[in-house]
Each structure stands twice: as structure tokens, then as C-alpha cells.
């Protein structure tokens, strides 16, 4: 299958307020692909840069460097007038349903807003399309003439989804679309998104810190820490056999509903470092439970441990050139396709503890 989106070495830095030469490094060197009909979950704490990645794709923030190849065109440096013709193909749903709809527009007008991007559509065709999309997202016809303040958060988010779907996009950036909703409403929206994807083969970039939602909707997952992807793979690989210490701690913070499952707590110490003064070497070394001296100096790269499960950690996935003394962790892929890691001294470290 062909990728419809390919992000290569994306960097976004903002000038730090108050400091002349300092920068906030929101995104440092991020690469990923999304295939047609696929959902990539982008996970991370607030401040990890995941939202900035999503916004770069729509040029809501201008990327500093890197390529964003969407439908075989690099949109990162494309001038905005040329990009306008592609806007209909890449859409976004925001987090705040109340805020992301104009209080002075009816629901129908809001849903129809992106149709201004599509030329050659009569008014009748437009209203037909609005009604059609509203039906797809289960917004009752009588709600179309209402204003946003008259609807619930869930209904508004349906309108947000309808608005994104109306131009038949290839890719929708879902920027934490469910994190402000009640859990029952959240489940409905998730089902709606999955259903729409099956019907239209649209691709999603699902940006969220809500791991349960990400696991539910994503085919593949990328975990971000301080503007970098630290681990990526299929949802199964990342959730069932996480390898990077950061992913492991992130996952261990989620309560597991099944008491038969072993619950490993692997907390990180301290706070997330400032994106202005980032640590040297591996960004996690200041908080990592398994960091060694080399982590402070060596910048890890994403290493493929088989079947697309890639990890950026010299302790788990050392580059061939990086050989460390004693207790080197070795990673491999087991017969079920999951990556595993174990110390060379034969002892299982905390990292190697299996999560069934």
C-alpha cells in the first residue's frame, strides 16, 4: 500500500519568549508515514510536541525544516496559495467542541464551511452534501438549524467530524477529539470515527494522551517525548511489548481493567525537562531508570527491531557501532512477533519484565 502521507525529519522550533537566541524545540526530527485507510496514534504527554506535529500538517504552524509529502507533493514548503487546492484533502478536528464552532453560525453553516474550498458546487449540491454528511455522523436534521450553544458537547463534536468529512478528505488530523468528552460520549465518537474510516477509507492521525482511545482506534502508534518519537510500531507491538523505558512508564500509568494482567509500575523520576534547554544525548536520561553514562552523550536513533517495531534507546536497541560494557540489553523478536529485551548477563532487568 502506498503512503498518502510521509513526514521526513520534521522540525519545528519557536523563538523562546524573552530570550534572543533561545528556541522552544517543539518538534525535533520526527519522521513517520501514514497509509491509506490507516490510523496512526500519536501519543505523548502535554508538551511532547504531538499537537504541533498535527498542526504542521495543516500549516497552522509553519514547519522549520523537514519534508511533509502528502499525495506526492511536499507541502512543508509549498506556498500557501498552491496549498489551498490541497486543503480539502487534509482536514482537522479539534479538541474543544464548543470553541471550535462559530457561535454565530448554524450547525449546517458550520458543517458546510469547508465546501468553500471545493469549486464548482451549486448551492443545492452543497446543501445536499451537508444533509448527507449530517446523516452519516447521526446528526438529526432538526439540529442543523440550531446554534452551537443549543447542542451538547457530543453533538458538537459530531458536527466537527462532519465538517472534516464533508470534502471527502484523504487524511484527518484528530487533535485530541475526545479528551474533553464524557466517557460514554467518547465511546460513541470513537465508534463513529472507526465506522467512517471503514466506509470511506480515510486515514487518521490520532493525536492524544488518552492511551485507551489510542489503543482502540489506531493501527500503528508513535510515542513522542520532548519532540521526538521514541518508539513506534503496530498498536499490538507497542501496547503489548513496549520496549522504550518511556513507553513502559507511560503504559504502566494506565490502570489495567483485567486483574489477571500483571501490572508493572515503572515510574519516571522528576519532571519533563524544558524544551528550551533539552538534555544532551538521550532526552530521557535525566529521568530514565535504566540510563547509563553513555545515555548522556550518545544520541539514540530509531532502530528497527523487526516487523516495523522501532525503538530509540541505546540500552534496548543499540546501534551496531555502540558497544557497551556489562549488562548490555539485547533485543530480539519472539515467535509471536513481539520484540523482547534481556540483559547479556542473563539476568532480566526491570525492563525485560514481560507484560502478558
Amino acid at each position, binding site marked *: 500500500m502506498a503512503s498518502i502521507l510521509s513526514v521526513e525529519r520534521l522540525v519545528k522550533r519557536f523563538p523562546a519568549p524573552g530570550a534572543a537566541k533561545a528556541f522552544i524545540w517543539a518538534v525535533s526530527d520526527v519522521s513517520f508515514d501514514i497509509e491509506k485507510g490507516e490510523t496512526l496514534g500519536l501519543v505523548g504527554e502535554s508538551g511532547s510536541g504531538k499537537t504541533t506535529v498535527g498542526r504542521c500538517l495543516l500549516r497552522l504552524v509553519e514547519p522549520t525544516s523537514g519534508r511533509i509529502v502528502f499525495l506526492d507533493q511536499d507541502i512543508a514548503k509549498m506556498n500557501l496559495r498552491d496549498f489551498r487546492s490541497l*486543503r480539502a484533502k487534509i482536514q482537522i478536528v479539534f479538541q474543544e467542541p464548543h470553541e*471550535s464552532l462559530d457561535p*454565530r453560525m448554524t450547525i449546517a453553516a458550520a458543517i458546510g*464551511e469547508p465546501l468553500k474550498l471545493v469549486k464548482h458546487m451549486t448551492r443545492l449540491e452543497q446543501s445536499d452534501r451537508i444533509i448527507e454528511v449530517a446523516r452519516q455522523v447521526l446528526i438529526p436534521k432538526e439540529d442543523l438549524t440550531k446554534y452551537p450553544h443549543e447542542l451538547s458537547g457530543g453533538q458538537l463534536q459530531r458536527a466537527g467530524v462532519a465538517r472534516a468529512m464533508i470534502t471527502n478528505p484523504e487524511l484527518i488530523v484528530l487533535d485530541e477529539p475526545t479528551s474533553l468528552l464524557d466517557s460514554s460520549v467518547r465511546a460513541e465518537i470513537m465508534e463513529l470515527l472507526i465506522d467512517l474510516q471503514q466506509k470511506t477509507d480515510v486515514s487518521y492521525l490520532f493525536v492524544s494522551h488518552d492511551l485507551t482511545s489510542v489503543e482502540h482506534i489506531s493501527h500503528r502508534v508513535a510515542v513522542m517525548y520532548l519532540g521526538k518519537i521514541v518508539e513506534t510500531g503496530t498498536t499490538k507491538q507497542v501496547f503489548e511489548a513496549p520496549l522504550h523505558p518511556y513507553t513502559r512508564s507511560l503504559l504502566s500509568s494506565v490502570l489495567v481493567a483485567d486483574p489477571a494482567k500483571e501490572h508493572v509500575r515503572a515510574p519516571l523520576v522528576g519532571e519533563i525537562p524544558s524544551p528550551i534547554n533539552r538534555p544532551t544525548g538521550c532526552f530521557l536520561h535525566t529521568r530514565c531508570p535504566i540510563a547509563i553514562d553513555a545515555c548522556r552523550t550518545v544520541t539514540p536513533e530509531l532502530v528497527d527491531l523487526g516487523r516495523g517495531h522501532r525503538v530509540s534507546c541505546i540500552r534496548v536497541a543499540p546501534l551496531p557501532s555502540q558497544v557497551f560494557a556489562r549488562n548490555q540489553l539485547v533485543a530480539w523478536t519472539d515467535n509471536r512477533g513481539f520484540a523482547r529485551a534481556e540483559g547479556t548477563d542473563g539476568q532480566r532487568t526491570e525492563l525485560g519484565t514481560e507484560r502478558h
Partner: protein
Amino acid sequence: MHWFGWKGRFILRRLGLLVLQVWGIVTTVFILIQLLPGDPTYLLGGEFSTPSTRASIAQDLGLDQPIYVRYFKYMENVLHGDLGTSYFTGKPILEEVLRHFTATFELVTFAFIVAVGLGIPLGIWSAVSRKGFLKNIPTAYGMVAGALPEFWWALMSILILYVILGFAPAPIGRIDVSVDPPHTITGLYTLDALMTGNVSAFASSLAHLVLPGLTLAFVNAAPIVKVTRTQMLEVMSSGFVRYAQACGMKRGRIYRDALKNALLPVITYSGLVYGFLISGAVLVETVFSWGGLGQFAVSSVVNSDYLAVAGSVMFIASFALTVYVLMDILQAVVDPRTNR
């Protein structure tokens, strides 16, 4: 049917509240006046008047009556539109108040239109401009215009535009002494002159209006700029604007949609400014010898002309309240969120 829905009830309630507020004002004014120092019988009878003369003056004015009798008598008169007679000029106070009010009204309305016409575009402009230097204009303007009192600006404008440059007419009154005021229709000189086709009176009254009007507008536009800018910035950072940007909507269109949402609080705020100006213009009126209502009220205080003070305060307060009510109603009518 729609009219007697949510909005109709809101408007009725608001009007009912207005009646209560005005009653409160009349009562408060009455009480405050009783507390004012100074004895009008001295002023009218003279410093060396005998106690018996003063007693008979007090009797004429009804000042010997118990306070509640005076209160009910006063309320009754007010309801009949009788605000009493000025101790000082001997004219009915309502007539005096209205005459001075039209002067103030003309000045303040002119200033208000200029302030809004200047403040709102400047606020929008500074909110949407991305260049650093434009962004700082309203802050600088607010500091300069707000930090120095109106009368100082009034004096400066007279010094520069009248004394030095000689552009402006002498800052005395509403029209040149040599020009006859236009035939009174509305009491607003410029409007009356226009309606009667009196060109020289129009030119003269407009020329006299410009300096005090611009002074008031200059000072009072500053907060309007700020409010507009803040509102506009807030709306521009909200989700639906970001979405419109994500869709690549034309910038002008985005600004227009944002403005619709930002303008409502600005309208409310402008109403406050207008209501305030009616009494707040007094310093500028004094500098330009405008003969407005604020000036009349102040001189009435100095003269211990109790009833005139009461009449002025009542009129100013009721006018301001009416403006606020109209703003509330306008807001209710315009805002879709108050639909039901």
C-alpha cells in the same frame, strides 16, 4: 409570538428594572441633598439677613416641613415633570436642565461617534497586525491618552490649535458671538443649522464642536481600542478561527467572522462610555465654556441650588441608565445565544 418569547420577557423585565432604578435614584438624590452642607436661606437672604427673613424664605421654599412630607411632595412633583424652580435663576429646573443637556448631548454624541469610529478600527487593526510596532500602538496610545486628564488635553489643544496656529475658533461657547444661533428645533446647533439651511451657523457651530469633541474622543477612544483589541485577540485564538485558518479561508473572511463575535462586548462597553460621557464631559465643558449639563450641575452645587443639583443628577443618571438598558436590549436582540 416570537416577541413575547424569551427576548420579549427579558426586555419587559429590563424595563421594569429601569423604573425601579430611576425611583432609587430620585430617592437617593433627595436624601443626599438633605445631607449637603450650606443653607439656601443664607444665600437668598444674604449674609446679614435676620432670622425672621430666613424663616420666611424657608417657609416659601417649604423647608420648614418635616422631611417625609418634603419627600412625598418632591416625588409627586417629579412624576408630574416638575423638578421645582431654581433658587438662583428663578426658572423651572426642567427647562434649565434640558437646555444645558442639549448642549452636552451634541458635544458628547459627536465625541462618541468619533471615539467609536476611531477606536474600533484601531483596535481591530492592532489585533490583526503581526508586525511588532503596530501591536504596540494601542498600548502606547492608551498610556498617553489615559495618563493625562482630559482638561489637560483640552488646554493643550487650545494652546496649539487656537493660540499658536489659529486654526480653531476661540474656545468660548458653542457658536461664534457674532453668529446668531439657529432657530431652535432640536436644540443641537449643528443639526438645527442644517435643518434650517443656515450655512454660517452650521460652519461656526461645527468649528466650535471640533476641539472639545476631539479632545473627548481622543481620551475616550483609548479604552475602546483596548477592549476591541482584547476581544478580537481572544476570538482570533479560538478554535473556530483556527479551523477557518486550517481550511485556508481568506484572511478578510476570517476577520469578518471573528469580528462578529468580538464586537458584542465592544458595543456594551461603548454604551458604558457614552453613558459616562454625559456627566464625565464636565471638565472639558468647563475649559471650553460649553454651558453643558455637567457645568450647570457643578455651578448649582457651588450655589447651593439644591433642586437644580437634584434635577441635574436625576436627569444624568436616568439618561445613563436608559442608554445601558438600550445596550442590554440591543445585545439580547443581536446575540443568537439569547435566542431562547
